[in-house]
Structure formats: structure tokens, C-alpha cells
């Protein structure tokens, strides 16, 4: 037996790259504005990361299994619109109270489940390309929400919104709900990716779906589940999003899909699939949110250049990971 025991003490750039980028950002932010590390600002940043973050956790699984979903942003807008519409409609019957909020949440979860399933069926059962399917559903949901809102904005009834608002602004033990939910999703996702057969199967399918098939893995079902899970997580994100402003329009969730994908990749998941890590995605989301936060907190650069700074940092974070296989 010449097997060496599992030990690789050398530090992998792919692991520490995103962490280094995050730490550098935090130090930069703290130096530039003393309020950056205030409890209020940290809470703000984490709460606003929650939407993209919850979605990005689902996206991590989809991408790890070799897929892609471009529809999440408009799916979120559509679900938010649907949720507001249903809650407003039910208001005269149900009145303000917990049941109507639960109804809204159920609508969001089922709509997410259904939308994810639709993507999944088209991709896995009809064998269509994920890029095209989700590009199509992206357009469909985006115009459905415009149609539902009649070109304008759907607003949750004001008193209902006031009742529902604590779901975004409230919290327990000094931590707001979106942060708690985000944390739970991350912990669950990390566990699922790292320690379950499902996570292992996602990585196997993403690295070589033929090998997975020949190893009796239910390739279509696992792929399908990744899309369904992402849909449900979009529903959860929407449940957190709606009470924030109580409205949905065709501008809701614009470009969320790209932010989520960018967060996943910045976090070290391979875009071509086969390898994914949920904690990395969290780092990626935080990096993306912090860039905007720091730029708002300082006058360092012209606001016209915000996009350029964001792009440069995304590229930098990915460059930092390239210690993995030099020269291959």
C-alpha cells in the first residue's frame, strides 16, 4: 500500500482568494468611513445581500450540476407581483392578519416551485439547452409582471404592508429576519452540497454527466431538483423582498440573475460545473454588495464609474483563485 493519507497542507489560492478579496474590501471600507463597521451598516449590507444571496445559493447547485438559470430575476419580479395581487385580492375576505401573510408566502413558494419545475422539465425532459430555456422564461416572467402591473407598479395595500413589514425590518435577538433566513439557507445549502448524496451527485453530473449516468445516478432527476430548489429559493427571497417596499414592477429584480451568477463564480464555483461550494457563494455575494456599499459611503470615484469598479473587482477575485491549476 503506497497510499498517502489525505493531507494537503499547502494553502490553496482557490480557497483563500475570495476570502482575501473580501478582507481587503472590508479593510478598505473601514479606513474610508468610520461608519462602515457600525452595527447599522453591517445589518443593512447583510439584509440587502439576503435576496441575491438566497438565490445565489440555489444557483450554486444549478451551476455545479452543469446548468444555468437566467430567469431568476424576472421570476422574482413575477412572484412578487403575483404575491401582491393575491394578497390584495384576499384582503377584503381575510382581513389583515397572519393568515393572509401565510397565504402570500404559500403563493410565493408554490409559484417558485412551479416556475423552477417548468424550467427543469424543459431542460431535463425535453433536453433543451438551459441557456435558451431560461432566456425564454426570463422574457416571459418579465413581461408577465409588466402585464400584471398594467405597465406600472403593483403595490401592496398600505396597511397590509405595514403589518407584513417586520418580516424584512424586524428580527430576533437584534438580528433581522432576512439575515436569519439567509444564514439558515446557507447552512442548509452547505450541508446539502458537502455532505449529502444530492450534493455529490450534482458535482458528479457537472463534471461528467456520462460518468454519472453510467454510475446509475438519476441524472435527469438531480438536474430537475436543482432547478426546483432554485425556484423555491427565489420564492423565499421574494417573501423577504415584498415587505421591504411593498411593491413590484417590471424593474423589480432586474439583473439579479447576473448578480447571482457572478456571486457564484466569484465564490469559486466552476462555471462549467463539476465543483461548487456554498460558503464561497456567500463570500461572492458579500463582495458584490460591499462594493456598492463602499462606493456609496465614499466619494472616491465618480458614480459613473461604479460599474467599472464592480467589474474590475469581480475579475480580480476570479484571478486570485487561479492558483488552482497553473498552466493547464
Amino acid at each position, binding site marked *: 500500500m503506497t497510499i498517502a493519507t489525505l493531507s494537503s497542507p499547502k494553502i490553496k489560492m482557490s480557497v483563500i482568494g475570495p476570502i482575501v478579496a473580501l478582507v481587503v474590501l472590508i479593510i478598505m471600507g473601514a479606513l474610508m*468611513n468610520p*461608519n*462602515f463597521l*457600525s452595527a*447599522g*451598516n453591517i445589518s*443593512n449590507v447583510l439584509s*440587502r445581500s439576503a435576496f441575491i444571496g438566497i438565490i445565489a445559493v440555489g444557483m450554486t447547485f444549478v451551476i455545479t450540476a452543469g446548468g444555468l438559470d437566467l430567469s431568476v430575476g424576472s421570476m422574482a419580479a413575477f412572484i412578487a407581483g403575483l404575491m401582491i395581487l393575491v394578497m390584495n385580492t384576499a384582503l377584503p375576505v381575510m382581513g389583515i392578519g397572519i393568515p393572509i401573510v401565510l397565504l402570500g408566502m404559500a403563493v410565493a413558494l408554490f409559484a417558485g416551485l412551479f416556475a423552477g419545475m417548468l424550467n427543469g422539465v424543459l431542460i431535463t425532459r425535453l433536453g433543451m439547452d438551459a441557456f435558451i430555456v431560461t432566456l425564454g422564461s426570463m422574457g416571459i416572467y418579465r413581461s408577465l409582471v*409588466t402585464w400584471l*402591473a*398594467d*405597465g*406600472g*407598479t403593483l*403595490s401592496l395595500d398600505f396597511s397590509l404592508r405595514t403589518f407584513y413589514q417586520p418580516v*424584512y*425590518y424586524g428580527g430576533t435577538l437584534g438580528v433581522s429576519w432576512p439575515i436569519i433566513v439567509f444564514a439558515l439557507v446557507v447552512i442548509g445549502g452547505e450541508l446539502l452540497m458537502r455532505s449529502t448524496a444530492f450534493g455529490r451527485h450534482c458535482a458528479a453530473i457537472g463534471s461528467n454527466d456520462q460518468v454519472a449516468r453510467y454510475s446509475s445516478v438519476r441524472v435527469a432527476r438531480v438536474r430537475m431538483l436543482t432547478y426546483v430548489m432554485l425556484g423555491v429559493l427565489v420564492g423565499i427571497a421574494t417573501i423577504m423582498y415584498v415587505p*421591504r*417596499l411593498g*411593491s413590484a*414592477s*417590471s*424593474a*423589480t429584480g*432586474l439583473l439579479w440573475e447576473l448578480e447571482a451568477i457572478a456571486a457564484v463564480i466569484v465564490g469559486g464555483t466552476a462555471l462549467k460545473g463539476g465543483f461548487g461550494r456554498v460558503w464561497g457563494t456567500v463570500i461572492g455575494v458579500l463582495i458584490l454588495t460591499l462594493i*456598492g*456599499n463602499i462606493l*456609496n*459611503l465614499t*466619494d472616491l470615484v465618480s*458614480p*459613473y464609474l*461604479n460599474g467599472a469598479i464592480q467589474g474590475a473587482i469581480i475579475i480580480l477575485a476570479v484571478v486570485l483563485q487561479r492558483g488552482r491549476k497553473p498552466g493547464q
Partner: protein
Amino acid sequence: MKRLISALAVSTALVTPAFAQDTQVIGVSIPAATHGWAGGMNYFAQAAIDRLEETYPQLDFVLATAADPSRQVNDIEDMLATRNISALVVLPFESEPLTGPVQNVANAGVWVTVVDRGLSVEGIEDLYVAGDNPGFGRVSGEYMVSQMPDGGDIVVLRGIPTTIDNERVAGFEAAIEGSGINVLGMEHGNWNRDTSFEVMQDFLSRHPQIDAVWASDDDMAIGVLAAIEAAGRDDVQFVLGGAGMKEMIQRVMDGDTMIPANVTYPPSMIATAIEVTALGVVSQTPVSGEFIIGSVLVTQDNAEQFYYPDSPF
């Protein structure tokens, strides 16, 4: 002023009933409803067309909404090529890319009405109907000055970086110059509720004392208000939005101290443009020239006149 024009249109309609001509087609090309103001504009365009089609049986309207400038060019080319339009009412997505195609339409002898955003070359359009962007900024600035005679610290949320936004901000800055009002920071909220929510949260983290906010748009004002409310800050005395969204007008009407006023930039200007154009097509009434719809300060006293409960905006 809009009412004045509507009245004019209606009276002309009464003067020239059923002129029994061949059907004439008026093309209307506008950007799609991608944000609140555009949604309102779409609504008023559709409403005006419905009303006019009933009033003038000899008129036919083609309405096209485009999601980006190149699609708008396609729409306009199609209208000229296949619908044989007699007049075109266009709210250009952007000035530069639309100038050439609209010029072609004008060269083909079609009446051209340009709305809101001017073309890059002067003299193409027969009629120009627009809001007053520098005026919008100026009225907002003057209101700020009147509310804060001793000066104060404010933050400003800007729209999507465009000429419209630049003109408004320039007008605003000119109006507050020397008044003692100090602008702590300006960031782009992109006329988007979510973005302005986050921008305002960060303004609040950064500046411990903010006296007032010029949100410059009602969608942005909603995001700003939510951020202030969530932060529980009571130093901000009021938020000035703009464009006259019905929910905001309602709050002005109700005497909400956070929303004491509004400045109009009516999306219904598209209706003005369509009605005047229709008038020009069906009658000999001279309607060419420029028609600038001024931005009006809305306060609790006059808010009722600016409240359109049926509009989505």
C-alpha cells in the same frame, strides 16, 4: 395647462364633425413601460388613442412600444413602410439613434410630433411637446430654498445618467446656489425603488444629520422613505420627489409632513401630443411649433387638480 389643451381638442372636435375623409393613420411610438413614469405615459397614450378613435372615426392609430432604441427604430420604419402613416408621434428612447430614422419619416412628407426628448438635429419635427427639465430642477430647488430659509444639509438621488437627469440637476443646483443649502452627497438611484432604498440606507449610515432629501422622482422617493423609516431616523424633515405619482399626490393632499409637496413632470404630455397631432391631421388648425409643459409645484392647496386615480402612475 394640459387641461387647456384637452379643452382645445374637444372644442375643435365639435367644430369639425365627421369630415368623411379617407381613413388616416397616426403612428405613436413610445418606450415600453419599464418604470413608473413610463408606465403612466403608456397609460395616457392608450387612453388618448381610445378617446380619439371614438371622436374621429376617420382616424386610425398604431401604437408601438419598444424596449430599446434599436427596436424603436424598427417600429418606426415598419410604420412608414407598411402602415402608410400620415403623422408620427414619437417619444424617442434616446435622441441620437432616433434622429436619422425620424428624419426619414419627415422627409417622406409625414407630420412628425416629437415628445419629451428632443432630436439631435433641430427643425425635423413639426411639433415639439416636452416637459421642462431645467424647470423641473429649478422649481424643486426653489421649493427646497423656501422650506429651508436658514439653509441645511441635504442629499440628492439622481436618475439614470442621461441628459434629462443632467438638466434637472443643473437647474436644481442653480436654484439653491447661495441659499445656504449644502448638498452632502449625490448618487444615482436610477429611477428605481430598490436601488434608491439601498443608496439612501448608505447615505444614512454615512451622514448622521440629513435635513432633507431631493429624491427627484417619486419611485425613488418611495425607496428613500422606506430606508428612512427602517433606520428610525427623525432628523430628515421631508423628502421631495417629483413627476406626480398618484400615491404621492395623495399623500400631499393628505398633508403628510414627510411629503409636503411634489413637482409635476406629467406623463400625460404624450396625450397632449397625440391630441394636438390628431387635431392637425383632421383639421386645418395650425398646431406646429413648440409646446413646453411647465413643471408645476404641487402642494396641499392644489394637489387635488393633479390627482388621477385611474392612472397606473
